[in-house]
């Protein structure tokens, strides 16, 4: 167990590798109750969300959500998150646990009229079920047909006899769901799904597997790969910014930033060595420093080191040969297109 953003969480239950394999092949269950849950309610809720976030909330249909950033006025990333339009007057935002307090304070400070903000985090439990068998494993307990819940959509339903908000989202690159429910019902809900997961040949999954899965999928981790010092265009997240929207926090800065190509870009890379590239390791081209590693691990499929790094834009194209310094030696590799592992989420999202 480790301390994570004020919560005690398991790094693994059985082992990082076996848990990761379970998610890729069958199904894995994650307790993600640490995530922050913010609700905006009122006639102005959608407009308020559109002002706070970079992606379009007004353009979502009821029940639909999207990945978005929240930026400061210089265009620096305050958090990456998922936002859902629950109704014409209700918006649900899921934020990183490590950013919850900062996000809520910022949102309150910049809340447009006609919207009420509730930080529902500590009264909401959340469980993620991920993997090619997630749908059929969860369906046994769900009162509604999960097939009708499209990717990045949410629906209220009974699961295991408890009122839940189910979204077809996740952080693994596999098909799956994230399920929110009342905190007090969390333990009973967990026990039920944990038994079902294990019976289906799956595994309970901790932070270690979660980090490896998201890295294989090419997803950034806030605080490690993205933070206030980086903007959407450096991070390759310009697709989550709708500059055509009316004014929103950071818009002016992002308009300016988009006009000039970024000097550095976040890329994924693979190495020839089995060694794990560590955060802050130097990235080199022809023995010259061109960047820095932000996340690293070892690919279970290839047994080779993998990671994300910011590199000077001249060296950010796929197939660019690079080297990474590990423990005083330079190990060769190359930039690749994300994701490394194309999981079952890609067949769902169409």
């Amino acid at each position, binding site marked *: 167990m480790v301390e994570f953003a004020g919560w005690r969480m398991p*790094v*693994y239950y059985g*082992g*990082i*590798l076996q848990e990761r394999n379970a998610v890729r092949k069958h199904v894995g269950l994650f307790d993600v109750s640490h995530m922050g849950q913010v609700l905006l309610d009122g006639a102005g809720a959608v407009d308020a969300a559109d002002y706070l976030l970079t992606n379009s909330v007004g353009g979502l249909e009821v029940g639909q959500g999207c990945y978005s950033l929240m930026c400061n006025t210089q265009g620096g990333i305050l958090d990456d998150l998922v936002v859902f339009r629950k109704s014409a007057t209700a918006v649900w935002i899921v934020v990183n646990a490590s950013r919850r307090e900062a996000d809520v304070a910022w949102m309150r400070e910049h809340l447009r009229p006609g919207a009420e903000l509730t930080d529902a985090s500590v009264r909401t439990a959340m469980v993620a079920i991920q993997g090619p068998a997630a749908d059929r494993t969860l369906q046994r307990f769900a009162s509604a047909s999960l097939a009708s819940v499209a990717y990045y959509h949410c629906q209220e339903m009974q699961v295991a006899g408890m009122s839940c908000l189910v979204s077809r989202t996740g952080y693994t690159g596999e098909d799956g769901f994230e399920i929110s429910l009342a905190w007090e019902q969390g333990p009973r809900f967990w026990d039920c799904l944990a038994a079902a997961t294990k019976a289906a040949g799956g595994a309970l999954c901790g932070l*270690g597997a979660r980090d*490896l899965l998201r890295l294989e999928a090419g997803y950034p981790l806030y605080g490690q790969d993205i933070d206030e010092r980086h903007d959407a265009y450096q991070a390759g997240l310009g697709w989550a910014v709708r500059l055509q929207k009316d004014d929103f926090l950071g818009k002016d800065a992002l308009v300016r930033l988009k006009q000039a190509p970024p000097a550095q870009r976040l890329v994924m890379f693979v190495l020839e*060595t*089995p*060694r*794990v590239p*560590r955060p802050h390791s130097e990235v080199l081209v022809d023995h010259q420093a061109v960047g820095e590693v932000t996340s690293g*691990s*070892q690919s279970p499929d290839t*047994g080779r080191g993998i990671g994300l790094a910011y590199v000077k834009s001249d060296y950010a194209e796929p197939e660019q040969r690079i080297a990474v310094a590990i*423990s005083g030696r330079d190990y060769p590799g190359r930039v690749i297109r994300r994701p490394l592992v194309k999981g079952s989420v890609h067949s769902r999202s169409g």
Partner: protein
Amino acid sequence: MIVPEDLLYTESHEWVQVKGKVVTVGVTDYAVGELGDITYLELPEEGDQVAKDDSFGVIESVKAVSDLIAPVSGRIVKVNSELSDTLDTVTRDPYKAGWMVQMEMDDPSELEELLTAAQYRAKLEEEKEE
């Protein structure tokens, strides 16, 4: 936590088996538990000379990278080169099949500075409480 009685231990979680002038060295059950799945192992070559407390190799997992620390000064006389092909041997059987190197000691009195099984167990208890 497995801590065989007949071995000596270092502060950095290596174990030492003494047979005359030769010692066999590996990492403890505690060490492999802390590391998790081992992703990389680098061992020295036969004939290498190592000083006590210097690094004689590297063991790495997704979680961490650790130097392997020589418990005594001496010459590497044998290396378990098969280990690199089956890294999970270290995890499954750290005290037998997971042995890493054998060294010929320069100065057997250095053994006196190592921990007994009881002392190592006490150290693990302390670390647990931290």
